[in-house]
């Protein structure tokens, strides 16, 4: 029996790891599965100093499997035309290293994996933007996709209806950075910097970030473009384009999204009732202390849920951007 077939608690926690230390912390804190990527452009968190070389990945998988924890390898950028070899190698190595699943976004790659590694479990990345039953039917029938990570555009009722209409598992984001755009369909970053999540595995990349002083105002810029201006009493945030403050209709505002993190811990029971199989924590760029605290809080919450106990109070407020939490698109009002 493979780990994938083992009986699981009904709502899994899928945790990020960008370093071996964070990986160990996630395993220790109670993750059901950990997702990680190779140290190159094949994954959507292609940041300097992050991710795993092949040996580190082998060690991480060994550690996880010895603790009954599964490992998903994210190969979720879009291959460069004329040069798909790095992406093919990543899939081949994920199979060789006995990863429990690969998380893929590109249809050509999904087909490659299905053809060359039929036994390697295939999950669909959120970057593939599959948000409806017909798209998911196409992917499951044609390429044997077993799980779909849902784009952060759907409401809870929409997720419930979707789960009734499809046979594959669904995984939803529950904590961390919140994409306000449909993932995999956003070129804001390349519009301003030339580098994007789909092509390069980066969004609003750090090498283009500058902070400048304008009197007592702190100005955050991305490739020379002003993303925000912070008064002395305001916490300064990283200039992710969709989280900036802009001028529209002669008003200055957070047009796309306020500085806030997704925090769906309070609605875990609703995810379970909606037929969701797994909740995902965002943050492969986060350190091990952050990972440990978030995973532990979610582990406690899900254990309480299973035991029919009330949720323990959340202690994650200080880990949220600007201290604010949002349930994003899961609540219709957000739209």
């Amino acid at each position, binding site marked *: 029996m493979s780990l994938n077939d083992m009986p699981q608690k009904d709502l899994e926690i899928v945790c990020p790891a960008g370093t071996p230390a964070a990986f160990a912390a996630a395993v220790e804190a109670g993750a059901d599965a950990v997702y990680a990527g190779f140290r190159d452009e094949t994954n959507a968190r292609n940041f300097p100093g992050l991710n795993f070389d092949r040996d580190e990945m082998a060690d991480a998988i060994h550690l996880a499997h010895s603790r009954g924890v599964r490992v998903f390898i994210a190969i979720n950028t879009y291959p460069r035309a004329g040069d*798909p070899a790095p992406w093919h190698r990543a899939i081949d190595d994920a199979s060789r290293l006995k990863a429990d699943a690969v998380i893929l976004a590109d249809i*050509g790659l999904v087909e490659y994996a299905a053809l060359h590694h039929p036994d390697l479990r295939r999950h669909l990345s959120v970057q593939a933007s599959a948000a*409806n039953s017909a*798209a998911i039917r196409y992917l499951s029938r044609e390429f044997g996709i077993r799980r779909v990570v849902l784009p952060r555009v759907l409401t809870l009722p929409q997720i419930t209806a979707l789960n009734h209409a499809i046979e594959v598992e669904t995984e939803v984001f529950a904590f961390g950075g919140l994409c306000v755009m449909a993932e995999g*369909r956003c070129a804001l970053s390349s519009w301003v910097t030339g580098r994007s999540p789909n092509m390069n595995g980066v969004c609003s990349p750090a090498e283009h970030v500058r902070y400048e002083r304008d009197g007592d105002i702190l100005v955050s810029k991305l490739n020379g473009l002003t993303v925000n201006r912070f008064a002395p009493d305001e916490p300064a945030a990283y200039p992710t384009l969709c989280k900036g403050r802009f001028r*529209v209709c002669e008003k200055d505002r957070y047009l796309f999204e306020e500085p806030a993190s997704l925090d769906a811990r309070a609605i875990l029971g609703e995810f379970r009732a909606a037929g969701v199989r797994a909740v995902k924590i965002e943050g492969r760029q986060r350190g091990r202390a952050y990972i440990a605290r978030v995973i532990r809080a979610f582990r406690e919450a899900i254990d309480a849920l299973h035991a029919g106990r009330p949720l323990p109070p959340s202690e994650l407020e200080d880990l949220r951007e600007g201290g604010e939490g949002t349930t994003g698109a899961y609540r219709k009002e957000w739209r």
Partner: protein
Amino acid sequence: MSRGRGETSVPTAASRGEQRARISMGPVLFNWDAEVLRDFYFRLADEEAVNIVYLGEVVCPKRIPFSREVLAEAAERLQEAGKEVVFSTLALVMDERDLGHVRAVSEAQGILVEANDLSAVEYLRGRRFIVGPFLNVYHEATLSRFMRDGAVRLCLAPELDRPRIAALSMVEGVEFEIQVFGRLPLALSARCYHARAYDLHKDNCQFVCGRDPDGMEVTTLAGESFVCVNGIQTMSTGYNELASAAHELREMGVGIFRLSPQRCDMIAIARAWRDLLDGRIDAGECRARLKKIVPGRRFTNGFFYGKPGMTDIGEHQGCA
């Protein structure tokens, strides 16, 4: 409604460059009044410069009921005039109601359809269809897969650069199209930014997007041009302008040049492009003519040249 199907010959990479380039009018991405749409398409029907016309609501399903009749009428008129007519599907499909729209378009007989979401591919499989710019096709294997599903044409995604387009265009047996004029689609969201900017909820949006038939400009706090909002869609502020790349695109085998409708004299835009593609004017003159048609608009074209999309390379690059 059978015109336009079956007559698209399948070119090889070698032969593509020699066929006469065609000009297409992309779907209207903005919320235009029905009468404006009707006038727009009836004028297009009589215009020689445009060969292909894409119709249909791509951005917001709430707008569909207002244009349905007019678009059906326009399709008939355009087909009578000898245009290839294509229906474009919704780009962001989030529930069964949205799927109903995609399905109705996809399963109508005798209509060529542009798929802008995987759901449309599911419905269109086994028939000839077009892969729209909202589907992610970044490398050859993905295109080949869609071709086995029935794809006969790919409209390239906006952020693709020259080397990627060159590599993709080596795939044989499929037509390539690229947007060369108008605001570029950059992102989609479940959230309506138009409603948000007007302090309205999406469910009670009062169709405020209709107030900005060319999109609503968003600037930075320093007053710099940033993006443009069109309902749930975010677009480029600059009008994409690829006259300087036309020759190179032709050499790569791109045969269809898409103009994305803005509220300006699109017929004049199409004629300028026709003259460019037929060799009557050069890229510099084409650009100068475009500038006169949309005075005050910024042109951008960085994506093609591997730069930030908001860059304007100007008129001298890429002509050599």
